């Protein structure tokens, strides 16, 4: 159909050919699909006429999951599954596990249309045509159409009161916003004059941008569609200040704070915050079916119990959950395995996609001028890394099953080089001391602690998100060995939001957090975790802020290496595949050379606990946030109870 003229578009092509294949497969299966039995959960509602029959609820061409290709078996309806989250904010994991996306990754990490019936990309990669499934409906039964995309584009992100900064960055190429067109009721198009390499991966992201919103529902809260007095009355009734606040409050597709908001996800939230137990029930209008035409999900209800993270292993061991990976870590493995004998569950060890399990992030944009100067000296960061005994961490904490590593891509990635993983990871106190002395930090106090140039003791406060006790344990070990080079380490436990916010404002000197997420990067994955473009990157939050806010906030990167990274990032965005690989390699080289983040340990397997009667959960999977959405790409809507 389309000849690929530009080799850089191979990712588009891959996505595109996937689309063609799926649509073809879909057409064939629709022809043979018989009339289906009703979902038992809805039988009463359908019989009483309050809900249409299954065939009328499904889109004309539902998304048929390729069970053969994914090694799944046809299941039975019913039941519920329980999993535990650490805090009530984690209800957003429902969006992650549900993983209904316009296009999404399959188990082999290829992009496939999901909510969309098809998605066409032209050969330059700058025109994206989205085909909506005819007859697809929101969870309240209202049609899902091009209007929902228009509403997002015109009435939300391009409304000055709702979104003063305008559409999110992935809808821009350079400074050019997308051109949005409605071709017909079921077709919309986004185009730019230049290729947009972010568009597809962003739509498939674990935290998706939701470029479609339930227009029919939200219009009642929007000033363009509602009588001003009525709207004002609603705003005042809720004690709010303006309609924009009301609209934002009502429309939180990821945070799920509004249980009345229509959705396209497999399970719908029915419990409001605050609570310690959140119940999600099946969406009657969900668009996926199994090869026999049975509407998914199989399981009626998904339940999130909220519990203190420290109790979670005990609760899992007591058989209180059906599916759990969150909060569990390798150190719980022996206990879980031991309880396996009395409980009806399997403990499986899944690979992780993260480049490192934990890493230290010196904040290069911290406000303290003295520390900033010190942290920015590459010798200092190298010395810190050399003064960490990673082998000890591995043996003490992970039974030697993990691997000492830097914070970088995994060997499975085509971009991998051994030196990325190994440089400056040997435990060498002498070399570290020499580096620090060479920096002129050779004055010490009576305790043998080095002094900063302004005479303060060299005490590094490492801030943690307070979620992972292993981080504290690692810091304990790191602190011991840093003491040998004359540096004192203090740990400060915070809450994730507070820790982030402190880093954003420059109050943090150093923090510990998970390593890079996408260790399986390929040349066409965006190298965002290695260049200063994200405020979330704790080694340079202000530079990231600068990029993300279009230079309205934060600071411009002012280290030569950082400027070089940005240069390579620009190259990556505009190059063909070979050029992308080159840029990626340069970015990784610079990172490896500069030790912008200090990786501690990697390849720590993730225990996944699954009830023995639960089917269609893979034996071996990759447990990763991006790409993968944890269980998301294994499609929890196809899991079922064999009992």
């Amino acid at each position, binding site marked *: 159909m389309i000849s690929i003229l530009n080799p850089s578009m191979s990712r588009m092509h891959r996505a595109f050919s996937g689309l063609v294949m799926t649509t073809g497969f879909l057409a064939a299966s629709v022809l043979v699909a018989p009339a289906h039995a009703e979902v038992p959960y809805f039988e009463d509602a359908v019989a009483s006429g309050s809900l249409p029959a299954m065939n009328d609820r499904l889109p004309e061409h539902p998304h048929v999951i390729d069970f053969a290709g994914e090694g799944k078996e046809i299941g039975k309806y019913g039941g519920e599954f329980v999993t535990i989250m650490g805090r009530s904010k984690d209800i957003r994991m429902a969006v992650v596990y549900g993983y209904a996306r316009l296009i999404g990754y399959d188990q082999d990490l290829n992009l496939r249309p999901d909510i969309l019936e098809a998605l066409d990309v032209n050969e330059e990669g700058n025109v994206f045509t989205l085909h909506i499934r005819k007859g697809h409906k929101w969870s309240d039964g209202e049609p899902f159409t091009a209007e929902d995309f228009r509403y997002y584009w015109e009435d939300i992100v391009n409304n000055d009161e709702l979104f003063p900064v305008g559409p999110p960055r992935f809808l821009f190429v350079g400074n050019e916003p997308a051109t949005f067109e409605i071709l017909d009721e079921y077709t919309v198009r986004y185009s730019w004059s230049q290729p947009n390499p972010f568009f597809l991966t962003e739509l498939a992201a674990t935290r998706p941008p939701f470029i479609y919103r339930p227009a029919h529902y939200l219009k009642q809260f929007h000033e363009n569609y509602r009588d001003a007095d009525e709207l004002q009355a609603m705003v005042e009734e809720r004690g709010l200040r303006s309609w924009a*606040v009301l609209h934002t409050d009502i429309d939180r597709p990821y945070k799920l704070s509004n249980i009345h908001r229509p959705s396209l996800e497999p399970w719908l939230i029915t419990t409001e915050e605050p*609570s*310690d137990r959140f119940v999600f029930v099946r969406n009657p209008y969900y668009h996926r079916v199994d090869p026999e035409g049975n509407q998914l999900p199989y399981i009626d209800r998904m*339940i999130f119990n909220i519990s203190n993270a420290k109790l979670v292993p005990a609760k899992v061991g007591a058989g209180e959950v059906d599916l759990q990976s969150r909060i569990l870590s390798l150190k719980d493995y022996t206990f879980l395995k031991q309880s396996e004998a009395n409980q009806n569950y399997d403990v499986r060890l899944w690979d992780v996609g993260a480049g490192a399990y934990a890493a230290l992030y010196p904040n290069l944009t911290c406000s303290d001028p003295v520390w900033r100067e010190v942290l920015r000296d590459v010798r200092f960061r190298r010395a810190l890394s050399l003064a960490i005994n990673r082998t000890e961490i591995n043996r003490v904490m992970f039974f030697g099953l993990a691997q000492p590593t830097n914070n970088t891509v995994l060997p499975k990635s085509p971009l991998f080089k051994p030196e990325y993983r190994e440089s400056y990871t040997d435990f060498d106190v002498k070399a570290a001391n020499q580096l620090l002395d060479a920096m002129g930090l050779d004055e010490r106090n009576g305790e043998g602690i080095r002094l900063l140039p302004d005479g303060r003791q060299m005490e590094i406060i490492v801030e943690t998100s307070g979620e992972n006790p292993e981080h504290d344990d690692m810091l304990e070990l790191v602190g011991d060995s840093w003491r040998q080079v004359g540096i004192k380490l203090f740990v400060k436990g915070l*809450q994730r939001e*507070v820790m982030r*916010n402190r880093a954003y404002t420059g109050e943090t000197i150093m923090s510990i957090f998970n390593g890079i997420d996408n260790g399986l990067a390929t040349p066409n994955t965006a190298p965002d975790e290695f260049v200063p473009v994200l405020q979330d990157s704790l080694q340079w939050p202000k530079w990231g802020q600068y990029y993300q806010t279009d230079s309205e906030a934060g600071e411009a990167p002012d280290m030569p290496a950082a400027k070089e990274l940005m240069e390579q990032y620009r190259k990556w965005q505009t190059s063909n595949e070979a050029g992308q690989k080159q840029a990626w390699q340069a970015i990784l080289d610079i990172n490896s050379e500069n030790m912008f983040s200090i990786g501690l340990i990697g390849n720590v397997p993730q225990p996944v606990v699954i009830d023995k009667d639960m089917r269609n959960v893979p034996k071996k999977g990759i447990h990763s946030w991006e790409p993968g959405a944890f269980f998301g790409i294994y499609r929890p809507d196809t899991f079922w109870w064999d009992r």
Partner: protein
Amino acid sequence: MLTYLARRLFVMIPTLFMISVLVFVIIQLPPGDFLTTYLNELQAQGEAVDPAKIEFLKRQYGLDQPIYIQYAEWAWGLLQGDLGFSFEYNLPVSDVVGDRLWLSLVLNFSTVIFIYIVSFPIGIYSATRQYSWGDYGFTLLGFLGLAMPNFLFALILLYYANVVFGTSIGGLMDPEYINQGWSLAKMMSVVEHLWAPVVVIGTSGTAAMIRRLRANLLDELGKQYVVTAHAKGLSPTKVLFKYPLRMALNPFIADIGNILPQVVSGSVLVSVVMSLPTTGPMLLTALQSQDMYLAGSFLMFLALLTVVGMFVSDVLLAWLDPRIRLQGGVGN
């Protein structure tokens, strides 16, 4: 007696006022507030910047105003029963708190009652049979409760409650009752879960109580009037309960005011460890995320509880011991 009560009640007002000032100042102490960090975060996410909302919040709480005006608004709201607005939950604090206050009260009062029920008989027994095996045994038990870290004890109890009784781990009820209305089954579930935290928090308080009662009683037992009573042929039980025990009770009751804040603060930690749906864990997260009005309301609630506890113990003491009543009423 009435004047005494009135005086005591009146004193509570300036006390609570001082506490509210302190609470407010302490909450404001950390640099930055929820809004500034919130604003930073929103700005950088680039997706949800909503200055209107910040403006709304800023004006609603007068965060742009001097601190004494902020305090006045907060305190005025408190007086009218308006607990303020939780930034984190985006809801009025009263909606966030919900059942938690009641469950906290249930937990704390059960614990106090547990402490009394356990320590009272043991205290009497230990005093009357000083240096006996029973005395040593109970004392050891009491000290074990005091010495064992609460969280460790909590985890052990939870584990065995699960193994032996099949009680779900953590929480104050089986998960399926959360969000349901109150029913008999739900209350039974609460009772089933309640004993573990009560024992954990309670045991750390019993040792002190036992020792105090034992010491006081021992003091009285050797006094002349007791010897006289015995010599006159009164039955030992009657002697004990009629005279020395009454005297020894004085500090026991005076402790109510101390035991309440102890129990309340002890229960915060245990509630966090055991995932109890009480105010404790929420207070902790509110403090961590600088959700100041939520934290402030909780702290004021705890303060109120303490002040009321003090009042109750004062009243009981006055009723029990005329000396206190008379001094309170007549002297100064």
